[in-house]
């Protein structure tokens, strides 16, 4: 440690004001504080501070995403094997194939995002904020495995610049940056983001085995609804809900396995980093709306699917656990969090059922509620103000 510290101290003047590389000050600072918690001491107010900081908070979110990431890597290989041979490959081969497919996406996301963040930090004279550590991994996890790398780079740049930095950087953004990236591609390049062909990453020129279908449950349900076919388990991959629960189905890299996502949820809730209120209310909202459709009397595949299936298929769980809980773009008041999450669940199911153009609703729902979160907070704050005013009158 002493040796490393000495090396850092030697380099420091070069990057400090007046040094040759002082234009990289923020970047150097980011790496230095990553390696060493600074030797600063408190200057005003409380002399002692909690052991938690933003680095640790963000890192815990990254850890919480690891199960979904590892599973996703395996599943990318698994899906390729199914598409090419129709058979299950072995575990390590699948993981290796998935790793080769996924790692470049992650590298592009982090390189582009962190590059822009550091540039902005330098330009503004701010320290580099840790928020992108999370965003940089969320973006790959919500991409289809076959996504072209240039799209990942473009979307990340869009999300960081338009989604975050124009608002003033981490802590100031209105929308969830990772979903902003996904939304950008979804609208700009829809054929690469949805449909039946994007969910398995295949080598160039490879053809799929006969009888292979790349359709997801959400796609099946949407077309069944528009063609008037009723609900049956056959619409789900594998003919039952269990594959969707375990996750060996087609979908975006990190969204398929509800089990892996729930492990992440447990990490987030146990560490107190993710809001259990938002997660719980999002699931409740989805369940509630699904149940309303169940008892509404109208028939159709989306109407009759058991309500709790909504929470398992598609990206619902991933969105509820990792996207809705972003503390910056979510409601910030404790009461507001209940309303915010509940409405995300409700709107997700509404979009799924009523809008065949968008098979998945969670992305839209989270972004929509991101926009409304300040309004929800406004009313919660107003109620606090009103109780105070009432006290004066009494």
């Amino acid at each position: 440690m002493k040796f490393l510290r000495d090396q850092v101290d030697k380099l420091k003047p070069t990057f400090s004001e007046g040094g040759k590389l002082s234009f990289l000050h923020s970047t150097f600072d980011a790496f230095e504080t990553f390696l060493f918690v600074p030797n600063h001491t408190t200057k005003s107010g409380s002399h002692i501070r909690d052991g938690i900081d933003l680095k640790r908070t963000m890192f815990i979110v990254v850890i919480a995403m690891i199960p979904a990431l590892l599973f996703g890597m395996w599943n990318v290989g698994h899906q390729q094997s199914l598409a090419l041979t129709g058979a299950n490959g072995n575990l390590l081969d699948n993981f290796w194939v998935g790793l080769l497919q996924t790692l470049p996406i992650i590298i592009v996301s982090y390189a582009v995002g962190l590059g822009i963040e550091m540039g902005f930090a330098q330009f503004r004279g701010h320290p580099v904020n840790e928020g992108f550590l999370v965003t940089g991994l969320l973006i790959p996890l919500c991409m289809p495995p076959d996504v072209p790398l240039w799209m990942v780079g473009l979307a990340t740049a869009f999300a960081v610049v338009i989604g975050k930095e124009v608002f003033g950087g981490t802590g100031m953004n209105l929308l969830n940056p990772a979903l902003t990236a996904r939304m950008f591609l979804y609208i700009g390049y829809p054929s690469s983001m949805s449909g039946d062909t994007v969910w398995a990453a295949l080598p160039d020129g490879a053809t799929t085995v006969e009888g292979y279908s790349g359709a997801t449950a959400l796609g099946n349900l949407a077309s069944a609804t528009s063609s008037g076919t009723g609900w049956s388990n056959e619409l789900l991959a594998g003919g039952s809900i269990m594959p969707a629960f375990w996750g060996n189905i087609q979908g975006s890299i990190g969204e398929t396995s509800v089990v892996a996502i729930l492990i992440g949820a447990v990490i987030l809730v146990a560490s107190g980093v993710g809001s259990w209120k938002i997660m719980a209310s999002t699931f409740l909202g989805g369940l509630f709306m699904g149940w309303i459709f169940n008892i509404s009397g109208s028939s159709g595949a989306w109407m009759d699917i058991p309500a709790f299936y909504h929470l398992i298929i598609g990206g619902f769980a991933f969105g509820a656990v990792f996207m809705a809980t972003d503390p910056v773009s979510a409601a910030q008041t404790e009461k507001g969090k209940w309303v915010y999450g509940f409405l995300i669940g409700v709107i997700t199911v509404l979009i799924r059922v009523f809008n065949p153009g968008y098979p998945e609703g969670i992305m839209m729902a989270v972004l929509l509620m991101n926009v409304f979160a300040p309004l929800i907070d406004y009313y919660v704050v107003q109620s606090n103000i009103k109780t105070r005013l009432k006290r004066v009158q009494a």
Partner: protein
Amino acid sequence: MGINVKIKRGMDIALEGEPHTDVLSVDAPATYAIKPTDFKGLVPKLQVKQGDEVKAGDVLFVDKGNDRIQFTSPVSGEVAEIVRGDRRAVLEVKILADSEIQYASFETANYTSKSREEIKSLMLDAGLWPFIVQRPFGTLADTTISPKAIHVSGFDSSPLSADLNVTLKGEEEYLKVGFEVLNMLTDGKVHLNIHNKKGNEVYSKVSGVEINTFDGPHPSGLVGVQINKIDPINKGDIVWTIKPQHVAFLGKFFATGNLNLEQTIVVAGSEIQKPAYYTARIGACVNTLLENNLKQDNVRVISGNVLTGKQIEKDGYLGFRDNQLSVIPEGDQYEMLGWLFPTYPRPTLSSSLPISKFLKKTFKVNTNPHGEPRAYVVTGQYEKVMPMDIMPQQLIKAVMAKDLELMESLGIFEVLEEDMALCEFVCTSKIEVQKVLSQGLELMVEES
């Protein structure tokens, strides 16, 4: 009959270096100082110059805004030095103390038959008035009004704080007199708020006050929290608060006619060799308390507690309203990957540090902030340590935006810096909550 409140949101921070209950004595220090910076909004007007002889109770300086408010010498002796800072602002008035204290005498006999104005005049002349803190904004008390109520927190819940049953032992009679005097200052109620799990025997003789009981962790002992629960401050209300040890000073003054500001204080913290109670006067130099009593040299000496106190030098002076000296190590060391793998336990509210949160009971805490300042990201944290019906993060943001109207409607009248010190402690983004709030309070004072 008062009310009974259980405080749920908050946290006790258990630190190493809890005091023994023995009351030790050390040599009285050579010098004492009264610091105008201990009082919010005070512009001092000096009444003495270097070399003047004063008795205990003689005036040193007055408030320029209201020269009835006098600040008097806690000891007799010679004005040794007037320490000035930027723009010649007076920082300290130092007194070289006599070995035998000479007291100025005041006519306090038959105080019960005196009028409110006469009581006030005596308190003002003796320099007891500045012990009263006025809310909103924590200023010196207005000498022309009768407050809506006077609140006294009968216990201290902050880290390493004094057990008042030790520090006020033997002062029961003076406390009784002190509360009688307080009752003469207001048409409203005098509230004495006690903790129902701590002993309250020192208040056994007190009568004529409303006794409210509190339960639960820090900040249950903060008078601001108690006022919020008992009878919150609305726009236009003015309430006064005073600490029990100062009520005892009041009582002693009216019972004896002398300004005797000797009290029992606590000297504690992990870097103190003999954490215990000591006798000291208001404004005492802390050098004799710390001599041969420190475990090492790289320490922070705090007059007050670790959450709200002021940093002083090793030969600095106790703050005017403080009865506590905390000494903790400085945290000026690098910690490799400390954010990921903390190398020693540290107090925390976060379950993301499970060893510190769930296994460790007391902490050797230092002054490292354990992270760098960031914009607000995490929400819902302040609420866990804010038992008042106030939205803390929204209030701080309103102050940052200098939105006076919003500050007012979010309840800035009800809080002082100390009430939000725990918010500052738990903040992931290391926002300087007390400093920000302080700016907001100043802004409100200017505007009103």
